[in-house]
């Protein structure tokens, strides 16, 4: 139901978007001033003059069989196009996830370990800075400073592990900022529990209390955010992928949007919805595994 509704909404929105898709497809193919004859030929090829309901029905029937159609821009099956690019996106998402979780844990625990003191202030300031700078600005600046001036890394990423660090770092920063703030709050809430007095009285160090006793209790909201954020990463990071020329799904979808490549855009919507649904399920299972209260429904 969710998939069907999402596909219908996006398909409908694209159908009413101003502009001739045939012309946009030709421009995306590099024909800067398409002739009326060429536009007409593409309209006929893509059957754009059929009623939108007929076009959606045709697409939906194919999608139900696993056929996401053919890219209007490249002429290749959409499923193949995504399959080619998905490994690179998963690589980027995985690297960004590791960096984001690591930075969130570092900033969140440092802030919670000394609330109101300089580690907390510093961590919150860093998180704020990471949050307010737009990713495309950060990406361009990183490329200029780190790659062009310092000679480290590569401008044109090739989708492999050797060039993933800078795009993953750029992608991870805003997520890490948000997650660290939630983790700090959760840790402080968990830190006010009375059972921690018992563990302290039994000789547990502050670090042990924080890591062994506070963190698991603070984990569920943090993990929920991480899970949903992971779905956002897997769904593609269009801006970061475009800035770093990362050959993933996000960048491909941006190009498809510019070209009004409807089968690709709607196909991407389905992938994003599946990613969110799957990530939500995994988060629920992990939280239940960590917190027995969730298992028993208490």
């Amino acid at each position, binding site marked *: 139901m969710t998939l069907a509704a999402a596909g219908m909404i996006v398909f409908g929105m694209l159908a009413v978007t101003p502009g001739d898709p045939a012309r946009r497809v030709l421009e995306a193919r590099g024909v800067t001033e398409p002739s009326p*004859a*060429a536009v007409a030929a593409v309209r006929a090829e893509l059957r754009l003059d059929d009623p939108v309901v007929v076009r959606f029905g045709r697409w939906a029937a194919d999608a139900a069989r696993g056929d996401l159609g053919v890219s209007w821009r490249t002429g290749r099956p959409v499923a193949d196009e995504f399959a080619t690019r998905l490994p690179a996106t998963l690589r980027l998402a995985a690297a960004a996830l590791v960096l984001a979780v690591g930075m969130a844990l570092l900033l969140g625990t440092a802030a919670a370990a000394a609330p109101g003191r300089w580690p907390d202030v510093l961590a919150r300031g860093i998180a704020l800075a990471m949050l307010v700078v737009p990713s495309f600005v950060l990406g361009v600046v990183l490329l200029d400073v780190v790659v062009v001036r310092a000679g480290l890394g590569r401008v044109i990423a090739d989708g492999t592990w050797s060039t993933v660090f800078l795009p993953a770092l750029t992608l991870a920063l805003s997520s890490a900022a948000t997650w660290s703030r939630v983790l700090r709050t959760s840790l402080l809430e968990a830190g006010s529990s009375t059972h921690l007095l018992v563990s302290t009285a039994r000789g547990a160090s502050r670090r042990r209390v924080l890591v062994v006793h506070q963190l698991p209790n603070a984990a569920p909201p943090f993990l929920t955010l991480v899970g949903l954020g992971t779905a956002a990463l897997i769904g593609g990071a269009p801006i970061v992928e475009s800035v770093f020329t990362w050959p993933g799904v996000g960048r491909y979808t941006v190009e498809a949007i510019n070209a009004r490549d409807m089968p690709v855009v709607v196909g991407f919507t389905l992938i994003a919805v599946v990613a969110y649904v799957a990530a939500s399920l995994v988060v629920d299972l992990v939280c239940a595994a960590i917190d027995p209260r969730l298992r028993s429904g208490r």
Partner: protein
Amino acid sequence: MVRRYLFAARAVVAAVLAAVLAACATTGGPAPAEDGPATLTIATGFAIADLDPLTNGFWGPEFGYVELLMRPERNGEPSPWVLAGLTNTDPLTWTLTLRDGVTFQNGTRLDGNALAALLNFQLAENPDLAAALPGAVATASGPLEVTLRTTRPAPNVPALLADESMVPVYDVAAYQAHLASGAPASDLVGAGLYTGPYVVDSLTAESMQLSPRADHWGGPPALRDLTIRFVPEASARIQAVQAGEADIALYPPTASAPTLQGRADSFFVTGEPTGPTFVLEFNQREAPFDDPRVRKAVYAGIDYTELADDVMNGLYRPATGPYVETLPWAERTQVTDVAAAEELLDRAGWVRSGDGPRSRNGTELRFSLLTYPQQPDSDALALAVQAQLARIGVGVDIRQVPDIQSAVAQQTGWQASVRGSGFISFGGDYITPLVNSLRSGGPNNYTGVADPVLDALIDQVAVELDPGVRDDLLRRIQRVIADNGYLGYLGVRLPAVVTGPRWRGYEVPISNLWVTATTAPDATPNG
């Protein structure tokens, strides 16, 4: 407290290690050899999907793996390329003579039969070519000769054969065999369909790799390796040059030029334009542009030199009319004359008191001007025009639209637009733009021009084979356009690329022919 700091220290060390990982990634590519043939890596904004000649063949001449029958020239007279000669033997007949020894990359010889098959196939499959040469038929009239017969005089045949989107040279028989086999377009890599000096070895969504062809009819080409990288972001293309990952970045935005001044790792290199860039067009169906005096006044009230030199920082040349002055028929019809503009507006009844806006019968003289985000220069030019026209009492409201083509295709609902639109094709065809844009009922006649005198002149020039008579007709057409304010251009953008140090002497070519057999660093690439 000590443990806390130890914990923090470990975290810092981890971060440093992570940064070091970035340094471990390969930076750029191998430095080019100083002696011997050079390599070239070009970063372009458009990806090439496949090597299908019908859908993507136009990319080939740009990157050296496809050739054309004729080569576009800046004087408007294409010269033979794969052809040895092109002769108009009578008003309806053209004789095409091939060079001897031209072969496709698969080894098949390009002879008269193959060329005739190519032309007939393109006439059948390419709607633009078919529209330009309706009913034309090609027949082999010798081992290296083809006769092309048209149904009406077609003086633009040389320009059509010099246009990358019309007749790319390829092995039609092999292509038809490929189509019949049902194989995917990706199989065309390695099929050797084309005659170009470079052969495509691999094509992915990220790049194209080419190697030189030793048996090319013109001799071995100048480069030992050619890579085309598809990089949609303009800033990334420029940074790739700066980081040494590319030698040339195509399609840099005009706004990037000032940022490159003083750098030693990248250079904004400009070339000679072949035509003006942004047309300022008026919808003649709607007031105030239903009055030719207002149209002419607006064109006369614009300072084209200021636009080129100050607003666009010298990266444009002032527009003087629909054609650049290197073309033999170009007339200087666009002249800034503020006094004449004001007199025209006074005569049209748009009067002003002091320096205020002009009005007539209580209505202010004001119009909306469309721009679009795909061409950022359109906004800069529109702002400048707004300021300039304010001096003569004309108000301008700027409105950005997401799809300007769709907006101006409507008969109503818009008054004026700034739009990127050439008035001469890549190959030098001057007829099709006139027919499409200015002839009554033309498919691109968005402004609603309907002038029987102009129509007659266009119909005459469309079939005029004598260059002298043609030039005279085109001059008369330009004067009619100017006398009625049918069309005007805001500027002539200089074509530009960004290069690294070794390619600083790169000559920006005509018609996007970025790579030819002679392209080399510190040499004229398109001789």
